């Protein structure tokens, strides 16, 4: 592994999203503030408790996770696609950087942005509700694994994308519905048995619940099972990304 190259790609990626911080770091803070005010405060007061805690406290982990997913995905998808579009991906392709180094560099950039956004949203949340965190270690592992998974997803999306529209299709038509149906705003125990079973096919359920367990100690899913699912998906996505880039799909003629 060429560590100098890895560090270079990672710094380049971080410099990119920090340079355009108004587009990358501010929007999640504003969006989540609105979610906290509208869903947490105004509607939440009428809902009462969920999972043994106030509704506001219940949705905080899900909303942080939603920001992590969106930002990790879009950071890598747009950065890698731009590099393809402007052809500066060739700078890496002509140099002796291994496929794994390129993947780790881009994914590292996406994870860094997701973690910064997670901290920002957590700080915003703390203005609305006191946070009594139960398991710091579980929170850290879950957020890193989730950010890595969606950064890999963004990379795979960018490999296949031919236009800028192609990097917004998956977030709009797949990620957003799965996130909203992934137990961010409700406990799946509220659903009829059939839909509870269907929900378990949604990978985001596992991430949100493991993360929520770390915050409030309550989860619809066994957190260890959730971590196992996350690791499995990470391994599968990493294998797909490595195979695609190694074969030069979308980047070599």
């Amino acid at each position, binding site marked *: 592994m060429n560590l100098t190259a890895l560090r270079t790609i990672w710094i*380049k990626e971080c410099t990119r999203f920090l340079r355009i911080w108004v587009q990358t770091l501010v929007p999640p803070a504003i969006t989540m503030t609105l979610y906290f005010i509208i869903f947490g405060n105004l509607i939440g007061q009428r809902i009462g408790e969920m999972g043994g805690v106030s509704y506001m406290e219940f949705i905080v982990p899900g909303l942080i996770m939603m920001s992590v997913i969106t930002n990790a995905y879009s950071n890598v998808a747009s950065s890698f696609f731009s590099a393809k579009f402007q052809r500066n991906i060739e700078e890496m392709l*002509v140099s*002796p950087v291994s496929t794994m180094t390129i993947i780790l560099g881009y994914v590292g950039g996406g994870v860094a942005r997701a973690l910064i956004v997670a901290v920002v949203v957590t700080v915003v949340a703390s203005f609305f509700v006191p946070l009594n965190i139960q398991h710091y270690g579980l929170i850290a592992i879950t957020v890193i694994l989730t950010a890595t998974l969606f950064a890999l997803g963004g990379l795979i999306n960018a490999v296949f994308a031919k236009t800028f529209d192609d990097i917004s299709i998956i977030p709009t038509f797949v990620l957003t519905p799965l996130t909203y149906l992934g137990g961010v705003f409700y406990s799946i125990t509220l659903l009829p048995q059939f839909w509870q079973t269907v929900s378990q096919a949604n990978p985001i359920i596992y991430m949100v619940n493991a993360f929520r367990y770390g915050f409030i100690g309550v989860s619809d899913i066994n957190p260890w099972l959730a971590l196992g699912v996350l690791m499995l998906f990470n391994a599968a996505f990493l294998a797909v990304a490595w195979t695609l880039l190694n074969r030069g799909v979308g980047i070599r003629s």
Partner: protein
Amino acid sequence: MTQALAIHGLKKTYKGGLQALKGLDLQVQQGDFYALLGPNGAGKSTTIGIISSLVNKTEGKVEVFGYDLDTQLADVKRHIGLVPQEFNFNQFETVLQIVVNQAGYYGVPRALAKERAEKYLTQLGLWDKRNDRARTLSGGMKRRLMIARALLHEPKLLILDEPTAGVDIELRRSMWDYLTLINQQGITIILTTHYLEEAETLCRNIGIIDKGQIIENTSMKALLSKLNIETFVLDLAPHEHPIQLQGFTMRERGELTLEVDVPKERGLNAVFAQLSEQGIKVLSMRNKSNRLEELFVDLVEQGRQQKEPAQ
């Protein structure tokens, strides 16, 4: 001595079925300044793409300084610096970021990369622009930036794909001087260009490629010696009698300008002698067109005629 580049039987068929290379063979010696010429679509950029691993080959063998592209890819890449035809850097990054990052991809530590960046950007007149974003540079500066970027890991083989396209004459000549200098310092250079004058001025050896095959691979000197007839334009002093030239094809272009085709074996003296006998004074003289250009067109045409019966 190990060759800088050795290509054997290189073939490339693109997904749509287009056969860009049909068994290309090419050798470039260490320290050479080599021109790869050919009409549009001949396969020059595909060849360069394969050498620099931007294009996957279909068949054939490529070696760079003895390293095999298939089995020693990282070593091959370390020895090559590529200056592509189109600007392919991030337009939003600064000049310094672009070159230092490129060095980083080759494993050059950041401190050393910054030292080299100062050296090469200064040599190419870009050090003052180091903190400017690439998109704000002029076309000529962008071309020089790509040369600096390709040199930062100090490659032994520099490949330039039409490096002076769209560059003004003054800058083109300063780039020629720079390329000549680094070639004298030991870097092997392969250049594609549409400016045949550029190849004639800079390069010692030349390969002409057409329809995916090398149709000529020789020294520039040997190639130019194939040129049998040159056309000269003579500007004459006013004269009374009509001009007559025995044994030469000539065309009068206006009252005082004459075009004469001069076969090499006859030379110019016979032209001047005949004009002098008629009392006609020659004020000045120049070549009508680039000699290499004529030869290039002839060779491509001959190559195509030879291939046609087999098709």
